[in-house]
C-alpha cells in the first residue's frame, strides 16, 4: 500500500535503543566517482569509487535513563578519556510502516555534538556522525 512517510514515522536507535525526543535525523550517502575519460572522448565517463555515509540528528535534551536520551550521543564525544577506535555506535535510522521497519543501519563515530540552553527554548543536542565501513542493513 502506498504510503508517504512523515516525521511521525521516523525513529533513531543508538546501539539498539530507541532514542526519545528525536526531532530530526538525516543521512547522506555519497559515491566517489573516478574520471575515466580519455583523449578523444566528447563526454566524460566514470567508474565507481568508494562510498561514504554521514549524517546528523537533533535530539531534545530530555533526561531519562542515560541510554535513550541525548546523553547517549553526547557522551561519545564529551568525555575525559578521549575516543578510541572501538568507540563506535550502532545507528539505525528507521521509518516505520505499521509493524514493518524500514532501516538503514550503520556503524559510525559521533563526530560532533552541539548543545546548549536558551531562554524560552527546550535544550536540544545536535549531533553529526560519520559512518565507518559498509552499511550493515538496508531495508528501505
Amino acid at each position, binding site marked *: 500500500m502506498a504510503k508517504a512517510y512523515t516525521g511521525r514515522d521516523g525513529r533513531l536507535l543508538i546501539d539498539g535503543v530507541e532514542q526519545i525526543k528525536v526531532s530530526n535525523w538525516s543521512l547522506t550517502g555519497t559515491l*566517489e566517482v*573516478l*574520471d*575515466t*575519460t*580519455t*583523449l*578523444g*572522448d566528447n563526454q566524460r565517463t566514470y*567508474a565507481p*569509487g*568508494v562510498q561514504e555515509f554521514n549524517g546528523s540528528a537533533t535530539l531534545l535534551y530530555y533526561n531519562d535513563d542515560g541510554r535513550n536520551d541525548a546523553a547517549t550521543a553526547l557522551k561519545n564525544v564529551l568525555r575525559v578519556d578521549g575516543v578510541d577506535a572501538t568507540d563506535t555506535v550502532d545507528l539505525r535510522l528507521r521509518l516505520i510502516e505499521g509493524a514493518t521497519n524500514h532501516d538503514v543501519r550503520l556503524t559510525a563515530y559521533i563526530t560532533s555534538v552541539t548543545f546548549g540552553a536558551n531562554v524560552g527554548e527546550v535544550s536540544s543536542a545536535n549531533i553529526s556522525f560519520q559512518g565507518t565501513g559498509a552499511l550493515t542493513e538496508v531495508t528501505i
Partner: protein
Amino acid sequence: MAFPSLRPTNREFNPGDWPTKTFNSQSGAETRILYGTQRTNAKLQLGYANVSDTNAQLFLDDYNANFGTLRKFTIPAETRTGWEGTGASIDAPPGTQWRYESPPSVQSISPGRSSVTVNLIAVI
C-alpha cells in the same frame, strides 16, 4: 608483447632537437654546427588515469618485455587519440623509435583501479 593499445587520458609531447653545438666568439657572434641529420631526444609522457589494474599491468608487462629502458619500440595509434594533426608529428622522429625513459609509475587509486604514467624518449 607490444605497447598497450589504450587511449591515454593526458599526453605531453616534446619534439626534441637536432644535435648541434654552439660556439660564441669574442665578438658575440654565434656559430652553430649541425652534428646529425635526425631530430633526437623527443619525449612523450602518457597518463592513463583510473584504468583497471588489468590494464595497468599491461604497462608493467611491456616494460619487462623490453628489459626496462633497454629496447626500443613503436607505439600504437591509440596513443595519439584526440590529436587532429598529422600523427607522425607527435610520434618518434623519422629514423628513431621510443624506449622507456624511466620505469612506468603505477599509483593505486581504489580497489581494482590504478593510474599509470609512462615516460618515453625517442632514440636512434
